[in-house]
């Protein structure tokens, strides 16, 4: 089984500064890490590989420093890594990003299963995974919280929907976007890190793509116009209730229900 996992480097915290003049995220110098949801995707891939054998490759898109997350994937157990890196890919929205990744995947070969994290913690759109599947004409399932059955020709999974869990059987090749807690991600291994220290990471640029039309990539290929970027407002709203025990118990329960804790 050949599995490909899409991963992304994201800022290490949500306290990212915005340049007041240009309105662009200040990424330089900020600590970064692998998108936490992608760790679940890698873990899912490695668990499947442990059952069926095969290969787990990873692909990322970003500046050369994004090689860090590919190396991290190696130290978790991934076999090969590819980075799509080209200045002409910069400024891509979800459409251009998914198109670029789909083009890159086509250039890399055929995969039985493509896994993505449900979303990233910086963009939070949860659209790139399903859009890749569209570009590649593959079936896809999002919000996958559980694998029920793994068979030769396909996979049966639980898809978490707002009010219910839908069970879906999909045939390979397909794309799954997994939710957190599908499996607890393993920690990177010092031994694997040492072993893969010099492993080559394949770099693909626009020139390696089948579609070489610059207008389909990066800012040019992005219909989304970002008007303004600003840090989210932090909410430290507090409510203080002063009532009798019975009323308080009821209010607390209602609140927890409203917030979906129960």
């Amino acid at each position: 089984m050949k599995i490909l996992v899409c991963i992304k480097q994201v800022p290490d915290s949500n306290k990212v500064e915005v340049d007041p003049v240009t309105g662009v995220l200040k990424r330089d110098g900020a600590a970064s890490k692998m998108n936490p949801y992608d760790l679940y995707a890698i873990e899912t891939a490695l668990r499947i590989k442990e059952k069926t054998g095969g290969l787990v490759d990873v692909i990322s898109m970003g500046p050369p420093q994004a090689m860090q997350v590919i190396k991290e994937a190696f130290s978790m157990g991934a076999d090969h890594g590819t980075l799509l890196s080209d200045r002409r890919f910069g400024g891509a929205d979800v459409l251009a990003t998914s198109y670029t990744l789909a083009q890159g995947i086509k250039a890399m070969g055929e995969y039985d299963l493509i896994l993505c994290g449900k979303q990233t913690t910086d963009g939070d759109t949860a659209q790139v995974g399903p859009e890749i599947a569209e570009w590649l004409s593959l079936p896809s399932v999002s919000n996958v919280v559980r694998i029920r059955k793994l068979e030769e020709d396909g996979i049966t999974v639980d898809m978490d929907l707002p009010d219910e869990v839908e069970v879906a059987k999909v045939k390979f090749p397909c794309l799954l976007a997994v939710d957190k807690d599908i499996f607890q991600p393993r920690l990177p291994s010092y031994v694997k890190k040492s072993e893969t220290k010099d492993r080559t990471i394949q770099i693909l640029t626009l020139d390696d793509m089948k579609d070489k039309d610059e207008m389909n990539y990066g800012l040019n290929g992005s219909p989304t116009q970002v008007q303004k970027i600003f840090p989210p407002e932090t909410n430290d709203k507090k409510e203080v209730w002063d009532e009798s025990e019975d009323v308080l118990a009821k209010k607390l329960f209602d609140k927890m229900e409203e917030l979906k804790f129960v």
Partner: protein
Amino acid sequence: MEYKKLDKVDISYIKSIIPDEERILIGDFINEEYSHDELSGTSSYPDIVVKAKSTEEISKIMKYAYEHVIPVTPRGAGTGLVGSSVAMEHGIMIDTTLMNHVLELDEDNLTITVEPGVLLMELSAFVEEHDLFYPPDPGEKSATIGGNISTNAGGMRAVKYGVTRDYVRGLEVVLPNGEITEFGGKVVKNSSGYALKDLMIGSEGTLGFITKATLKLIPRPKMVISLLIPFPTLDHAINTVPLIVKSKTIPTAIEFMQREVIIDAEQYLGKAFPDKQSDAYLLLKFDGNSIEEIEKAYDSVAKLCLEQGALDVLISDTEEREDSIWKARGAFLEAIKGSTTYMDEVDMVVPRSSVNEMVTYLHSLQKECELRIKSFGHAGDGNLHAYMLKDDLSDEEWEKRMSKAMEKVYDKARKLGGQVSGEHGIGFAKKPYLRESLPEVNLILMNGIKKVFDPNNILNPHKIAQM
């Protein structure tokens, strides 16, 4: 010593000092939790609980109690494990949890001055917001700082940073006669007479009542990375500890843990632990100001562990990964508690070079004493926590087997040059073992000191070295 039984006159005096009825609990209004702490099996109700809000209130109550020979028991969050905060002679209990204010952060002297009821988690969150660091890190984050000072709590960063004592600069204390005084101060050095501040630290509320503490802070290390290291057997893991200590690299923590306890913690927290390939693990933590600095520091230790047979060395370098490991580690005590009907603990400390021998011995005792014993702990500083579990044993059988195991454990610790308690204190529950482990003259000195501070023996009687 004959104590005066609290009567109506005493109660109305206390009410005149505490102008707020909600801060006084009497008789049936005293919650059950005030009769015990978290573990010791020691149980006794106070006659009255006073939730103090100021040093002056405590001073007035102490003065009155001193004059009328009424016993007083200080109490923080009640998270102790040896009965220090249980009112053995009833009388007055003074609860400090409302004295929970940060009084001053002195960024020029790198000190913070707090009231005793500030919780450890509040303290660390507060200083970290200012990019500073209070290193002592006991597992129980909801303990008060007053309680931490009173037991000289240690915690998980002791290997590199030391224990609570190393971070207490000054204390404001109400003496048993009600007088208010200060020991130490903001000064870094102090050779001005007997170290009274240090007598207070670890005195478990028997010498004076801590009402204010000035603590030393250090700049906050920018990054932490932990290594979770699976070994094929417990012996492999624990035998590596002295070698790590000897290797002169300084992790902030060296902890050992076994799969059974990890699984208990998973069930308790409802969260999966990131690795389960092995029966025994070491958990090491390193801090520093850059990834490169930390990687350099841990590289030789990682290699050493692999040479000693470690199955791998797993790297935890993000907040999510740290949470998945250390939240489990922090929950071990509660998780073990939840896995049995009742338990008792041993908190002995041995020289670091003997920690492996002690752990192996603890393991072998399970069979010998026919008792389930779970252990985990601060392998790097020689402080081991072993929990003896009652499960479905009858009271009689439990008492018999537990006492036998305790005797043996303390005996072994003594032979290895160890001490009865590394960080939880002696309180009421561990008195017999302290008695056996120390020379008579040391106990006489301790009781002599107690007498100088508290001639009427009203402050937290029957604790530590007293009969």
